[in-house]
């Protein structure tokens, strides 16, 4: 798994490439916790290069959503492949997280997708 961070407007975009599972989730958790501790309140997760997510990864997303909610922040996700979308749907995460198709749809403005 690789994590890269960039900013767009007032959003911080965290891209996760590879898998978000029981092996890689602690590293992702650490990166997201650090971003929030560093003051990030508007966060977008770029899943364009995410291969699959298991419940360990969902736990990270849930923890991040709760932290941001407590600080009146925002969490958006985009770029889910079929399997990631299916896992979000099965687990009910599609209804508790904001899911968008593309970065342009998630963050608006001139779409770069």
């Amino acid at each position, binding site marked *: 798994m690789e994590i890269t961070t960039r900013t767009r407007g007032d959003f911080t975009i965290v891209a996760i490439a590879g898998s978000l599972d029981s092996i890689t989730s602690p590293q992702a958790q650490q990166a997201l916790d650090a971003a929030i501790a560093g003051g990030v309140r508007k966060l977008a997760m770029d899943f364009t290069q995410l291969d699959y997510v298991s419940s360990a990864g969902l736990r990270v997303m849930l923890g991040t959503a709760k932290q941001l909610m407590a600080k009146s922040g925002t969490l958006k996700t985009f770029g889910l492949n079929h399997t990631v979308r299916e*896992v979000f749907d099965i687990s009910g995460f599609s209804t508790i*997280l904001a899911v968008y198709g593309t970065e342009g749809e998630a963050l608006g403005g001139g779409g770069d997708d």
Partner: protein
Amino acid sequence: MGSEMPHGIRLVIGTERGEVARAHAAFAEFAVARALPDGVRRNLSVVLDELLANTLSHGLAGRAGGTVSMDVKLAADRLTVTLTDDGAPFDPFSRAAPDTTLSVADRPIGGLGIHLVRQLVDEASYERRGDHNVVVLRTRLNGGTSPSEEG
């Protein structure tokens, strides 16, 4: 059919947490070699992660020298994965499905992994065979639970 490529793999892993990574890598390699649809490979990767992490943290927790084996077999249009461990009796499917309609604040996360397992393969079963836990997963490659539509 008529292929000389291996129709299956068998892997025995230890009980350290990092061993799950080895199972993931072996399955991914097999999936690529046999050109399994991406949707099937991804679904099974999720399922393996749930079950192996579960096994290592429950049935084999705190035990040194336990083993887990993973058998993957491809026959015609069906993939069968069998996970066997010599840990304490543990039926991963014995828990009730979680309430996935709860809001983000009220939601307990436990049980979600097994819910995913049930949904992402066509059949999932458990049996205690002698002093082993045996989980068998079956999924069709075509017309299954998840068509592959993206790279």
